């Protein structure tokens, strides 16, 4: 073997990245992550692969590269943060945590783009955010976004996203009843979910009640902070995390549930996010231990079977459910409880759709390149409904289907279960 590579002490002490070097050292460079990485597959450059990005992180930590090196920013910015590499990595490299630490470190030197800062500022301001989504909802109700969805460029895509956020199912009306014996649950309503996917939130509440959970409101909740954490604004994320922990503690329910995979992934990582905050670390860890995706709760309950509804459906796994939360089977268990569905398997359903939080707004070209094979695979299934449990994915895939003229819509799995329960109520079962 060669002379050992001498590794100097950390060149950037005190930075978030410096605290994450153990994770970097876990990478043995085997390359098993390459084919799991959407940006490597799209670009064919190892600098845009997990192994290459970890190499860049290590070079930053060792001082071989400066924090303002433009190519480092390029390749770290281009990462979707889908964390598919984590479910491919035999060594258990905590890639998501490394990425957030790296972005936080780089942000100390070069500010994120203005567009990103504006979006994050909006999400951190509850009242403003509500006003904006209310305006978006009003716009959606006019039907104009659907008319303008085929406009070329980012603007057309944005209209298509808004149009595709409308539920494809008719509104479910039934009284949901259960014993409540499975315990009490508070819903994280979610900025985008409550704003644009309120139907999915109501469906979540009804289906959980029908499966014997008791819903407890948690009034003072905020944005979960996931977008902030992914963008490297760890302090912003921590502030929001503290508010949410307090709000849900005050609500007093046994569990916290979300139907947005991206939010859920961060809720489960509050413990990690606040690990160094003595006043909050224990509370954060306890909070994370209580956080669940709605599909986990429904799967644990059985769940109760509804009445037949006939759709040809295919399931696409949100990355933050599949890879970050490692929740694979539960959404399928939810679909199993719906008789009448014709299920078609989706090729590469565990690959990212390119939505990735606000990635599609910051890196539209690469996002579209990652999305293209997804839409092609969906078209082959002939499904009329694409089922996925995350608002970003619902809108990203929905918009692309709409613009490509594919006769399929996106829907949250819980909404489908709710429709099945509504059908059962109508038929008096």
């Amino acid at each position, binding site marked *: 073997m060669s002379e050992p590579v001498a590794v100097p002490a950390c060149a950037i002490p005190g930075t978030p990245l410096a605290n994450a070097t153990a994770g970097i050292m876990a990478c*043995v460079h*085997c390359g098993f992550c390459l*084919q799991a990485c959407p940006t490597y597959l799209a670009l064919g450059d190892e600098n845009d692969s997990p192994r290459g990005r970890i190499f860049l992180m290590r070079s930053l930590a060792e001082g071989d590269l400066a924090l303002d090196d433009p190519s480092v920013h390029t390749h770290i910015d281009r990462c979707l943060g889908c964390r598919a590499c984590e479910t491919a990595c035999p060594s258990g490299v905590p890639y998501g945590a490394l990425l957030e630490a790296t972005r936080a470190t780089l942000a100390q030197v070069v500010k994120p783009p203005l567009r990103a800062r504006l979006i994050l500022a909006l999400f951190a301001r509850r009242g403003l955010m509500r006003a904006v989504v209310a305006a978006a909802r009003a716009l959606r109700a006019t039907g104009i976004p659907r008319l303008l969805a085929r406009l070329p460029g980012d603007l057309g895509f944005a209209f298509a996203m808004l149009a595709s956020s409308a539920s494809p199912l008719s509104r479910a009306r039934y009284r949901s009843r259960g014993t409540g014996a499975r315990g009490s649950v508070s819903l994280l309503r979610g900025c985008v979910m409550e704003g644009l996917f309120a139907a999915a939130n109501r469906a979540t509440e009804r289906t959980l009640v029908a499966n014997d959970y008791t819903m407890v409101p948690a009034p003072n909740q905020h944005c979960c902070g996931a977008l902030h954490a992914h963008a490297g604004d760890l302090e912003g994320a921590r502030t929001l995390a503290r508010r949410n922990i307090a709000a849900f503690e005050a609500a007093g329910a046994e569990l916290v549930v979300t139907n947005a995979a991206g939010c859920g992934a961060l809720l489960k990582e509050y413990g990690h996010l606040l690990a160094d905050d003595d006043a909050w670390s224990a509370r954060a860890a306890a909070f994370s231990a209580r956080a669940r995706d709605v599909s986990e709760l429904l799967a644990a309950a059985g769940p109760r079977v509804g009445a037949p509804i006939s759709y040809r459906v295919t399931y696409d796994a949100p990355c933050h459910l599949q890879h970050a939360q490692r929740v694979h089977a539960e959404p399928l268990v939810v679909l199993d409880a719906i008789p009448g569905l014709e299920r078609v398997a989706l090729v590469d359903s565990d690959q990212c759709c390119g939505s990735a939080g606000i990635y599609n707004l910051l890196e539209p070209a690469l996002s579209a390149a990652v999305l293209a094979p997804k839409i092609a695979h969906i078209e082959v299934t002939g499904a009329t409904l694409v089922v996925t449990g995350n608002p970003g994915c619902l809108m990203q895939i929905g918009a692309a289907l709409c613009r490509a003229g594919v006769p399929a819509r996106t829907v949250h799995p819980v909404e489908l279960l709710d429709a099945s329960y509504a059908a059962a109520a109508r038929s008096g079962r």
Partner: protein
Amino acid sequence: MALHTETPSRASGPQPEQAQDRRGALIQTEALASLLAAIVGERGVLARPSELSAYSSDGLPGYRLRPRLAVFPHTTQQLVDVVRLLARKQCPFVARGAGTGLSAGALARGDAVVVGLNRLNRIISIDPLNRLAVVEPGAVNVTLSRAAGAYGLHYAPDPSSQTACTIGGNVAENSGGPHCLKYGVTLNHVVALKVILPSGEITTLGNADGEAEGYDLLGAFVGSEGCFGIALEVTVRLTPNPQGVRTLLADFTSIDAGARATSAIIAAGILPAALEMMDGPTIRAVEASIYAAGYPADASAVLLIELDGMDEGLDADVQRVEAHCLAAGARTVRIAANEEERTRLWQGRKKAFGAMGRIAPDLVVQDAVIPRTRLPDVLREIAAIAELRQIQVCNVFHAGDGNLHPNIGYDSRNPDESRRVGLAMRDIMQACIDAGGTITGEHGVGLDKLEYMPKIFSPESLAAQCALRDAFDPERRANPGKVVPVHSCREWVGA
């Protein structure tokens, strides 16, 4: 030099530089980068040191060499134009697929250009009737088997890195894999190669009909570690999926017992599709990973044994293998109940190398072959060396064909430990050679095994290898400094 040749086309590739650079003088890196970009586009060339870092190591990260440039052709024609440009500029180059190799074979020293083949990843054709496929060099091993699966066929060589490694890289290293025990290595499955020689000449070696055409130059090219040229198209044989497969996991309280069972199975005339061994530390690393396969965590060794073939008689073989394992001292022998369990057992084995990152931040893996009957002795000797040098060795290897892979985890920031690991690697290699073995089974020589070549080859033999290389690459620009020690070529080339 071969039957089908095309001379370098004057029409292809960029022309403007020819006048100024007739003499083939050394060209400035910046100028070379722009000439390459004229062929492959701006985004197909990496020139910044920060971006070349990712290409400064492969699957064996103890070595780092930063290349001069990296270029990524997207089409065969671009690849041809790139190689011809490099020939005109007399620039050395190193072909690289996925960079999963374990002998530092895909590293380029500072005067050489990395030619990345990963974007040339198309499966050009599959001919199910003749059981042949034609692929580009960057096609990923497992994608070929997936595509062939539609016809009940697969590509048999299955290196553990098959989810990432490329067929071109497999050709360069003559890669093996667990199932090579029964099905043979890459060489046994490649029937024809369309290659570009370092001079820019295109030629075809072998043919799809399998007829001999004079000397077996295909056999020379497969396993030449990128020193003879670059494959443009690889024609491989596809293998029908077996009618039946049985996968067994036998666990032992000593490595010795596992080794005895291995010998007994082969001596009984049974030829398993695969016969793999993992020792205790490896088992525990895998079980801690996302690929946890349910191996017994307290075992000192497990054997993963696969039998395949016609359903008829398969279960009788299973019973014989089970009996041999139990006779050698196996605690339990478990048979995978379904495809899911079989996949899990194999994933654990195939990802074991990657899982070693749990043990220590750095990792070296050795690759040596010994006569199978010497397995118990050599494994004992490796354990003694580990104790002497105060290092931890994890063994995960192809027991059925005596192909050892001692993995040594260490921390490169600790100079003393790094030194001891280096010494242990040499001791282990010497022990394998002394046992009548050789220095590489499937990882290639690359840079890592260079120093061992004179231990197993005579000067005359090394000179003969240099002469063969000169027939393909007289300027020695393709993967320079690899495989055969340079001094051998200098000293012995005239002998």
